[in-house]
């Protein structure tokens, strides 16, 4: 009876783990999300590391570029210090945001650039609808997805490298139409600043490197340009947590534990013995 219960529990646990493993993650930006709004391609194709800012700041800036994409939770003073430390060691930090949540970090870093409220709309140059505008990186086109614009009026050290077209405007009241007084293009969308011995790049769109956007226009080229020879290290500590993601991460940790050489070889040695012993026992039952 006891053995039957054990087998039932084992089978149930296996099914739960299997279902969790194969069930797709749909939360924005997560590395495990292979859907349109995930960063699975950034993770697999560019071997991105996903960690909290404080851990990333300890990485070697010669090998990694720090990405802060679409933050939704507030930044702490420790986060700002970690970013400054990374910059002081000559690192490059890419801040991609369209909700303005990253303005708090920009303020903590004393950077004179801000993400403006509103949605960038280009009724003529877009990849389907005005809210998916085409922007210009030199002669190259970069497609965005519900982007904002940057306020660089106080920024003398900003080098704007990404502009919207002359047809674009910033839809401040989100009614999808141009109203008098709304800022008209060309608007600055991406800037680069040399500060603290490193480089900060601010892009007014969190979606530019999503799975569904990477192959659009010259988005991949822009990513390659920003990365140079480094790998992306993405901050995952400023996104809303998701139970499924957390459980999947737990399973990944468990898998990593089981992949340790000591554990792996122990299992390899003991499992045949246990299998033979248990099979005899089960046969007896």
């Amino acid at each position, binding site marked *: 009876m006891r053995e039957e219960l054990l087998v039932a529990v084992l089978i149930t646990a296996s099914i739960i783990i299997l279902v969790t493993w194969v069930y797709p993650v749909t939360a*924005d930006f997560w590395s495990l999300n292979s859907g*349109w*709004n995930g960063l699975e391609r950034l993770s697999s194709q560019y071997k991105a590391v996903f960690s909290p800012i404080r*851990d990333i700041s*300890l*990485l*070697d800036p010669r090998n990694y570029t720090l990405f802060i994409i*679409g933050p939704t939770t507030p930044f702490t003073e420790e986060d700002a210090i970690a970013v400054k*430390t990374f910059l*002081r*060691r*000559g690192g490059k930090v890419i801040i991609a945001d*369209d*909700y303005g949540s990253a303005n708090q970090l920009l303020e903590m870093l004393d950077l004179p650039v801000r993400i403006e409220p509103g949605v960038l709309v280009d*009724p*003529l*140059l*877009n*990849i*389907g*609808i*005005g*809210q*998916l505008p*085409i922007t210009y990186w030199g002669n190259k086109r970069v*497609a965005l*997805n*519900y982007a904002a614009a940057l306020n660089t009026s106080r920024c003398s050290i900003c080098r704007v490298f990404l502009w919207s*077209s*002359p*047809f674009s405007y910033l839809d401040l009241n*989100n009614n999808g*139409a*141009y109203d008098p007084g709304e800022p008209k293009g060309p608007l600055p969308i991406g800037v680069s600043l*040399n*500060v*603290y*011995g490193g480089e900060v790049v601010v892009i007014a769109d*969190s*979606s530019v490197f*999503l799975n*569904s956007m990477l192959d*659009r226009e010259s988005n991949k080229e822009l990513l390659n340009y920003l990365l140079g020879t480094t790998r992306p290290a993405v901050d995952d500590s400023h996104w809303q947590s998701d139970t499924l993601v957390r459980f999947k991460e737990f399973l990944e940790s468990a898998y990593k*534990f089981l992949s*340790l*050489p*000591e*554990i792996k*070889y*122990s299992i390899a*040695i*003991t499992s045949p*013995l*246990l299998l*033979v*012993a*248990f099979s*005899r*026992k089960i046969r*007896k039952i």
Partner: protein
Amino acid sequence: MRKPAYFLIILLTLTSLVLYAQPPRHVNPEEVQVGVPDPKFFSLTYAELANLLSTENYTGYAELSRYLLQVSAPGDIAYIMSRFHEIAHQEGLLLNYTKTVLERAKQYALLGDTETASKTLSEALTMLARVNASYISLADAAQVLQQRLKSTPTPLLNAIVELSRKYLANAVSINETLIANLTRTNLTLYANTDQAWIGSFISVRGELATDTGTPLPGRNITLLCDGSIVGYTTTGAFGEYNATIRIPYKYVESIILLAVFEPKGNDSLHLKPSLSDPVRIRVLFITPNITLTLEPDTALPGSKVNATATTDLPRANFTLWTFGEKIPANSTEGRASWIFRVPPDAREGTYLIRACTNPYAIYGPSCGLAELVVKKINLTISLEPPQILLALIPSTLKVSIQSSTGTPPNSTQILITIPEIGLAQQVETNNTYAEIPITLPPLASTGKATLNVIATPSDPSYSTATARVEVLLVNPLLLAFVTAAIVGAVTLYKKMRNESETETTVEPPARIEAAPTTTKIEPPEITPKKEPIVQEIQVEDPVVDEYMKALRATEKYTGIYMKPSQTISEYLEAVRPRLGMYSQYFEQISRLVEARLYADTPVDPGLVRKLREELEKGLGGNA
């Protein structure tokens, strides 16, 4: 009950409205339905293009119309739009070209080069014909666009028509000039010198006459210097003219002077315009010598540098250009000094610092250059790692920092990483020597790994230093786990194997051979050493049956199972220590069954049952 329900509905509605007010972060681009572009925007853009055309801003027109070529739209709308935009873009280029060619034709006509002017004009007229031809297609495309997209390109069409008319009028005017039988004129220009000081006056003179030598008195002559008008004069009775020109404050090597005659009024019906040959005047001015010295010429980031500029000018307004900054200074007796700071975040390298004087009067601009080398103080790290790093047990890494100047930085951040196990630790030290405790994570794997150390001083004048060393990681916890797992698995395997073998052998109903109850065993023939194995026990005998029951209870209690090779006595000896005080019952049962089996002695089954019950009672109570 109803009130809370209403409240809940209102709350949900408000929440959904608030959520709706916030635009989405992004949408799936694959799922968006490509809509028709807003015609209002096209109308506005066409009006802007028309405006650019009417001001003949062809650069702006070309830029904006190039953007329009990239506009995306669904289905056939895309073709309708791109047809209109392509022709509009082309029209702009043709009009721009026509304008340029017409201007050239006019210039040739003014110079009297009728042959080239005619050729160029012919080219301009061809261009205009192409503009008109394209316009027919453009008007057609505009009509379709207006019907399908409801946008209004009329202002753009009107602007094109206006410009075409204007250029045609210009062409006609040039043509009239060419076909008229005008008298050619000759204009000469001479200067009294071929070099002059900047700002000084020079005299020029010349003559205006027809190509047959008839002087043209009382005609206006325009004098140009590098294309800018610098004076007017009128010819005298013999067609001669004189003028004084001031050399402009242009600190250049030389300038070009020209005289132009443009027939006005009645003259334009008889005379052709003429242009003199250019006269080159070398401009003289003093270029001051500037010497810039830096003290020191090799500096650390964040440090101060003294810059001194000297010049042979009695007074000069200096500007020092350093690290993207402009610092003005006035000189005293030809000397100016500055103190500037090297930016703390300046990278190592050679920077050019320049001190320039602003030009005034006969003194031209001049710059003195000096090289500033920005160099950080080199740091080196020496490491003394422990021979073996044990997981969970803190080990100490000894780090000493030396600087090339001997003065260490006040504070240094030391970053220690072991990439193989994802370890990253950061500490700050104020000393040149630090003992840093390293604690490996509990799941660090045993093996060789690289320990990297990066020292980043807080003082920007010091460079970052790195060092790496190979270390051996040992995780006793995981090794103990491995050993325990293997030992445990082997033990479990052995136990299960034993259990399985015993249980299979002692299965009474299947294995006991049925011997006839009538079989008699002769006592003398049976010796204890040759006791039959348990398989030969008769199960039908009540005494044997009782023994079997006692045997099972004993096996269960002791965990020792009777092996096929064991005799009743041998098994009794094996379990005796485990049974303790109850061994007497099992011993008596064993002796009785032996007597029954091997001596054929009559045994009372009731006695055996009683003993067995006592045994079970005892064992059951202690189990």
